Each structure stands twice: as C-alpha cells, then as structure tokens.
C-alpha cells in the first residue's frame, strides 16, 4: 500500500472524525451553558444536581462513558445496541464535554464585576437584556482561550471512539498499520490531527481578535 493509498483510505475516516467533532461542539457548548446556569441556580436542589453532574462526568474517563452509553442501555434494559454508532458516540462526547464547558463558562461568569449588572439595571436593561447584550459577549471573550484548549483536546479525543467500534480515522489507521505491519499510518494520523488542530487554533485566533472589541 503506497503512502497515497494510506492517506486516501484514512481521509475517508476523517469525515467521521469531523462528524464527532462538529456535532459534539454543536450540542456540548449550549448544554455546558445550561449546566453552568443551573449550577448557579438559587434553588439548592437544582444546583446540587448540576454539581453532581459535573463531578461525575469530569471524574470518570471518557472511554468508560463511551462504553456505558453504547452498551449500558442493552445491559440494563435490554435495548438494542445502536447500529449507527455515531449516536451513542456523540451523546457520550457531548455529556462529557458539556461538564468541562460548564466549568469554563462558570469561570467566565464569576469573573464579571457586579458593577456591570448594577450599571445595566440603572440604564433600564431587563435581566434577559443584561445577560445577552452585556454579560454574555464579555464572558465569551474571556473564556475563549480556555475554550480553545478544550476544543483542541476534543479533536484528539475523537480517536477514543474506537473503543465502541466506530470506524473513524484512527481506527482505519490502526487497521492499515496492522495489516501492513507499518508505522506509517500513525505518522499520517499525527499529521492529520496536527493540521486539524492548527486550523482550530487559526480559527479561534481569528474569533478572539474579532471579540477583542469587548476587551476591558
């Protein structure tokens, strides 16, 4: 198998890697915000539930969560294991990453001075308006570097989907490496991940620059 063949074969899996990546971001970022808001809730029960969620999801390995989400429903309730592995994979990644995003988001919220809320109130902003027009844009600006960090990790973590037999890029790489007794697919995988993350870094850098408007 030539280098070109290996790259082409692995590129086919890259689509599935991207599917995990984008779908996870799409669901985990809003879910993270919701969890963070619940954690800050005045109602002790809600706040405790959110804390427990973060504690458990952050405190157990993603690999275990993947297995639990994929095979758990079958072992516990006798439901069929999903044929389309993308569904359990994205659910597991989303609930896991949401817990991290929630904490990042909370750090941003906590860093906002109370004066901002007071000023908004004086200017006649409603609570919703204050949150979406004044607080949120600044929070996003502040948490972008930590968010980028987590997103970069997500790119690399997609290789974990192999645990539940989802045929993403790294799984295909392993198959080729095994059948060809060659290390080349691993080098290719490394390059793929690096380029992917370089792109993520570039895009996030651009976003950060855009948002520097909100810099205090």
């Amino acid at each position, binding site marked *: 198998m030539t280098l070109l063949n290996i790259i082409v074969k692995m590129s086919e899996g890259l689509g599935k890697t991207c599917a995990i990546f984008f779908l996870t971001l799409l669901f985990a970022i809003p879910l993270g915000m919701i969890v963070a808001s619940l954690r800050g809730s005045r109602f002790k029960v809600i706040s405790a539930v959110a804390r427990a969620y973060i504690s458990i999801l952050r405190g157990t390995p993603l690999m275990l969560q993947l297995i639990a989400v994929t095979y758990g429903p079958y072992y516990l309730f006798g439901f069929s294991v999903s044929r389309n592995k993308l569904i359990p994979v994205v659910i597991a990644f989303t609930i896991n990453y949401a817990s991290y995003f929630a904490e990042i988001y909370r750090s941003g919220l906590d860093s906002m001075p109370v004066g901002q809320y007071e000023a908004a109130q004086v200017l006649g902003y409603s609570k919703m308006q204050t949150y979406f027009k004044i607080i949120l844009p600044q929070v996003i600006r502040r948490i972008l570097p930590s968010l980028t960090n987590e997103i970069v990790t997500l790119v690399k973590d997609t290789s974990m989907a192999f645990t539940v037999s989802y045929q993403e890029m790294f799984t295909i790489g392993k198959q080729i490496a095994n059948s060809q007794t060659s290390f080349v697919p691993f080098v290719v995988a490394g*390059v793929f991940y690096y380029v992917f993350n370089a792109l993520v870094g570039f895009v996030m850098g651009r976003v950060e620059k855009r948002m520097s408007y909100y810099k205090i």
Partner: protein
Amino acid sequence: MKKRVTALILAVITVMLAFSLAGCGGKGGEESSTKEKIKNESVSYGSEESRTSFTMGIDPEYPPFSYMGDDGEYTGFDVEVCKAVCDYLGWDFEVFGVNWDQKLIQLDAGECDCVWSGMTILDSMKESGYVISRPYFDNEQVLLVKAGSGFKSSKDLAGKDVAVQLGTSGESLLNEDLADLAATFGNVITCDSFLKCFTELEGNAVDAVFVDRPVADSYVAEHDGFVIIDEDLGAEQYGIAFRSGDTQLCALVEGAIDALVADGTYAEIAAKYEDIDEGNLIFLK
C-alpha cells in the same frame, strides 16, 4: 498586511513539515533499518543457556486459549502449556498482555519474548522475518449468529453487518482471501476485543461475528441463544511467534513441548479444555 504574510509563511511551513514527516515514514529503507536495529538489539538477549525468565505475550481476552481465570490469574490452554514449558526448562514464567493489533511491534520492542495466544500463522509474519514455531493447532474461521435468526450460510448474510476483532486472522481474511464474501456483507465492524464483538451481536448491533472456531465453541457453551453456522470459511494453523534471530529460543520451546507431549502432560492440559477439540491439536495426532 505584514501579519498576513507571517500567517502565510507559517501555513507553508506547517504543510512542508507535514509532508516531510509523512515522507520519512514512507521511505521503506529507513523504516526497515530502524526495525532491523530494534531486532538486532533484541537478539543481544544473549545465549539461551543463561536465560532465567520467559515472558509470554498473550491476548488476555481470548478464551479458551488465554484469558483471566476466576481467581484473577491468567489461564487458558496456551498459558498452561507455556507454564509447563517454563517449569520444564527451569525459567521463571511471566505473562504480558499485548494489544493484539500491536502484538508484533510489542514483541520487537522486547515487551515479551514470544506471542503465543491462539495466533494464526500468516505468510506475512514469515516474510517479515519472525521465527514461527511448528503449527500446533488446526483452526477454521466460522460465523457465529443468534439462534433463531435463520441464517444458515454465509450467503444469507448478504447486506448484513458482521463484526470481527481487529488484528485477527479473521480480519485479514475478510480483507484478502474472503474479500469477495466481505463485499456482500453490509458493514464489517472491527472491535478491539472479541467480548465487544459478542456484545454487539447480543445487543443486535451486528448480525454475525467472524471468529475462530474454538472461541465460538467456548462462547456457545457458556451462553444460550447462539449458534455457529456450519461452514468452513478458512482453514489455518496456530503457531508461536518469536523475534527474528530467536531460532535457538524457538527450538528450546519446541523441544520442551515435545517432551511434554511425550510424558502426557500436554494431553492432560488439553483434557481440561473441553472447547478445544483434541482432533485439532496437531501434536496429539
């Protein structure tokens, strides 16, 4: 403008770096020379007379050949035979659980002294220079399906999903000799262990598992509701793999096995494993 130029230069460097890295890996010469180096180093383990311990590389999830027993210790037919070989030769016996799809790399790296775990002898192993023992087991590949699923032959599985373990001879077969059959399947799913393959089957995520006969027999014996499709899809033989240059070690182990066969220990061990058909054990024929 200046920043754009810098960004462009950085992008070009990234791409160049990427290609040069890929290029390095692609050059067969360099790759094999490092491989050769590793192999030569491992040969320097020295003469076999001074050997005091022997590390066996196994797939820890491969019953009945190698698995974790109820007491938490590794056991299985291959493990017990190897233990007896070590006792016979006066070596300390050690077990190392390999990552099955990396087994030969781990062997080269010296993490174990052999791979001995229901391992099918492939021509590619001999071509890569590994020392392979005499075959000790006649195996065939079969399809395991759920009872009542109505699948009677491999043809019935056209358009259906089949699971196979990554790094097994079954996977190689589906890629090579049985590629035509594999093409009729809906999807071929590779799992990182057989237990996951079986879970996929139990949970209806796949319709069949392509697996070695004794592993399937062992599973059917312990779990209700599964049947083996009676169709021989690929005959093959198990052997033990050693690093290239370890011919002396291989000869010692083979000699010890011969002695165990002669004094009946080998047959005794085989008798403990009902799922292993003695008719397939080459040394007992």
